[in-house]
Every structure is written in structure tokens, then in C-alpha cells.
């Protein structure tokens, strides 16, 4: 049986794993693997593990529970060690690096921010600020929508302008929050968002929250700001020195 690894903590972590359910159909109980000052939270790995909602949830829930009670270095979903002994060996061989990462993450949380333009509002804004676009729109309206070719050309022009707008607004959002975080990690534009950024902030992060509220108020009509957290520091744990 291989070992599924959820994350690493200080050995002094309270480790409230009783009653927590791990990945897999049978929801294997969690175990603690200790090595000197470090601990790993693991379980037996289920056969044929895949990215099922149930297992993603289990992985996230274990890490969030650990995070709420102390510092945790989350491992990426689906990490498997040959056995518990291999986990112990890994903790031993990189003990200094893990201790260092843990101390850097002490008291820190990840907050993920996604920003999406409210489509009608941003289109209206584009039309207002661009006379050529406005005229094209009026002409198409007058022609009852225009033919397909004209519509595609018009829409393509909008898409290009929207892309510029997304980049500019994205920079603005990140710039407003960056001063209140100790690190930023920019993610891919999933699900149509123009900002997908994770911020590492010291809990309880009042400054950051205040900056978020200001942003939300200032741009309420234009931008839908979605905030997720506090999360375990998924985006800020790397064994690569340069990235850490």
C-alpha cells in the first residue's frame, strides 16, 4: 500500500486529525508520520486515485483543518510516497528546508482573489470611451444588427479592446492589494477572470481586507471581485530556493 501525503507541519502542531476523513472511497483514516521536529499527515493511498470531487474535497478539508490549528505546508493533490518510511526519509533529508518554509509560513494565510468584469458595464464603458466603436454600434443597431460578417468584425474589435482593458484593470487590482501582502502569485485566467492572484498575508489580514473592501466599493459596477480564503499557502510552498 502506498502512502498519500497531505502536508507537512511542525511536530508541535496540534494535528487535529481525529475524525477527519482522507481521500478514497473508503476514506482511510489519517496518520501522522514524525521525524524529529517535523510531522507529515498521511493516509493509505486508495487504488486508482483520480481527481474526483470527493477526493479533492477531502484533500482540501484536511489541509484547511490543519491550517486552522497551526502552520501547514500543503502538498499538491495526488502526491504518493512508496511507504511511510519514505516520508520519514524525505523529512529527514530536507529537514532544514522544510523547517525554514514552515517558519516562513507561520501565521500566514493564502487569499485567492479572482476578478471578473461585469459584461454589460464594461461594454458600456468601452462604447463611451471609443467613438469609432460607438459609431459602429449605432450603425449596426440601425441596420437591425447587421450581417454576420459585420457583427464578427465588430465583436472582434470589442474582444481586442476588452483584452487591453482586462490587462489594465488586472494590474490595477493587483497593485492595490500587493502592498498589503508579503508575496503574490499570479495564476491562469480560469473561468473568464482577468485577475487570478493569490496573496500571502499575515492573519488576520485587516489591511488586506480593508484594501479589498475599498476595491470592491470603488469598482462595484464594473468588477465582480471574488475572494477565497484564508487558505493553506498552496501557492507559496516551493522547494526551489529561487521561487521561495
Amino acid at each position: 500500500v502506498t502512502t498519500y501525503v497531505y502536508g507537512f507541519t511542525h511536530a508541535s502542531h496540534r494535528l487535529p486529525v481525529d475524525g477527519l476523513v482522507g481521500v478514497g472511497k473508503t476514506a482511510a483514516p489519517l496518520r501522522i508520520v514524525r521525524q524529529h521536529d517535523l510531522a507529515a499527515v498521511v493516509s493509505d493511498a486508495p487504488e486508482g486515485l483520480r481527481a474526483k470531487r470527493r477526493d479533492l474535497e477531502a484533500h482540501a478539508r484536511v489541509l484547511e483543518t490543519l491550517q486552522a490549528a497551526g502552520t501547514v505546508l500543503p502538498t499538491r493533490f495526488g502526491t504518493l510516497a512508496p511507504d511511510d518510511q519514505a516520508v520519514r526519509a524525505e523529512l529527514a533529508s530536507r529537514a532544514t528546508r522544510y523547517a525554514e518554509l514552515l517558519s516562513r509560513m507561520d501565521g500566514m494565510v493564502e487569499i485567492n482573489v479572482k476578478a471578473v468584469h461585469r459584461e454589460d458595464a464594461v461594454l458600456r464603458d468601452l462604447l463611451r470611451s471609443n467613438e469609432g466603436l460607438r459609431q459602429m454600434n449605432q450603425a449596426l443597431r440601425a441596420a437591425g444588427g447587421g450581417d454576420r460578417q459585420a457583427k464578427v468584425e465588430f465583436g472582434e474589435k470589442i474582444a481586442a479592446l476588452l483584452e487591453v482593458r482586462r490587462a489594465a484593470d488586472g494590474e490595477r487590482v493587483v497593485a492595490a492589494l500587493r502592498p498589503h501582502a508579503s508575496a503574490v502569485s499570479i495564476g491562469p485566467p480560469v473561468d473568464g477572470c482577468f485577475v487570478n492572484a493569490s496573496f500571502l498575508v499575515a492573519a488576520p489580514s485587516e489591511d488586506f481586507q480593508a484594501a479589498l473592501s475599498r476595491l470592491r466599493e470603488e469598482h462595484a459596477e464594473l468588477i465582480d471581485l471574488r475572494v477565497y480564503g484564508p487558505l493553506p499557502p498552496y501557492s507559496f510552498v516551493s522547494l526551489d530556493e529561487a521561487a521561495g
Partner: protein
Amino acid sequence: MTVMTQGSGGGRSSGSLYDVIELILDRGLVIDVFVRVALLGIEVLTVDARIVVASVDTYLRFAEAANRLDVTASSTPTSLPDLVKEMAGERDGKVPALDGSVVERKGGSR
């Protein structure tokens, strides 16, 4: 802890899982001596999102959405749309189904 997840009533709803799925799948500590199960990558979803943005269908949709707006030259351009009162609709609703396995990528572990 304060859960400030927006729009899901707080807590870990399936909606919020979807919204942070790329963190769970594509971030987190990678330990080179351990294996990682071959799964989907969120990159599949990301690529998909880009394709959608740059498609004729999207252009047509933008054109039609703009046509619905009566913005005339008399409505002076402003830096922010202070006149906009109607709420823009919810986003597309283009949320990949997350029931059961997500997206399976063929091939071995990476």
C-alpha cells in the same frame, strides 16, 4: 477562522471548491522523489477558457451584447460608468461539471 468566501454563503461548498480547484491541483509542494498521480491539469480548463474568448461565437455574442446597449454620443465618456445602474448578469455560467471525475488526461504521471 473567518471564511470570507463570497457568493457561496461561506464554508466549503462545491462552488468554492471549483473556484480554488487550480490551487489544489496545480500548486502545493511538489516533492521530486515522490510520484504524483496522473490527473487532469487545470491547464485543460485554462486553455478552454482562452479558446472561448477568441472564437467567432464570442465575437457574435459581444456584438449582440453591445447592440443591446443604447450608448449614444450624447452620453459623455467617463472614466467609470457612473450612470450604469443595472446589474450586469451573472457570468456566463460556463462552469464545467465537477461531479464525478473532472477531466481525465491520458498518459502517465508528469
